[in-house]
């Protein structure tokens, strides 16, 4: 069966520090991968999605970047965090070429101080 792992679960980082959040999927190949952010009391904002290795699409201009160095690995990064980067970050995957909905990871709570 397919599983998605996301870590760390919580992170407190000072303003201006770098960020790296990792997401991996097991039990499938060539998944579509997604990064979402959920700010307090707000809905889900799609940040990035990827349909293959090295293929990244950005949905909103921001202080963050994403990379997909391996088929089932998706990384969210920042060189210098801002206070506004605080939030709950969710990774998700879906089968390529089909719409069966997303499977989400358990999320990372990022607090920038």
């Amino acid at each position, binding site marked *: 069966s397919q599983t998605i792992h996301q870590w760390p679960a919580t992170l407190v980082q000072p303003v201006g520090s770098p960020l790296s959040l990792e997401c991996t999927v097991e039990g499938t190949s060539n998944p579509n991968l997604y990064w979402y952010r959920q700010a307090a009391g707000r*809905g*889900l904002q799609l940040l990035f*999605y990827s349909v293959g290795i090295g293929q990244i699409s950005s949905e909103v201009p921001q202080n963050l970047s994403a990379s997909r160095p391996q088929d089932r690995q998706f990384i969210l990064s920042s060189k210098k965090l801002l206070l506004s980067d605080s939030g*709950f970050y*969710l990774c998700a995957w879906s089968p390529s*070429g089909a*719409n069966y*909905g997303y499977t*989400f990871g358990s*999320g990372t709570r990022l607090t920038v101080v």
Partner: protein
Amino acid sequence: AQSVTQPDIHITVSEGASLELRCNYSYGATPYLFWYVQSPGQGLQLLLKYFSGDTLVQGIKGFEAEFKRSQSSFNLRKPSVHWSDAAEYFCAAGNTGFQKLVFGTGTRLLVSP
């Protein structure tokens, strides 16, 4: 533009009472439709999905949803709410092929004793 609307930000239901959460979509064609549930600090879990066919779909945890094309709605229902159902519920929609799900802003369900 494609959109999903959840008109209720908060809903409070007494334990044992019935529940209906509203979802309306705006798409060029009939989209695929989903309901997700999110417990505090957790990722999103798929409750049910509609692709085609029977307009009443059954999901996990005793939930069901009805697709009404004439009303562009996909409302979530449960006949008897349990305290453990308190969570945030998201409606989402997508198209065939590779797609990015469009999420509603969520409805927070509170269950009173």
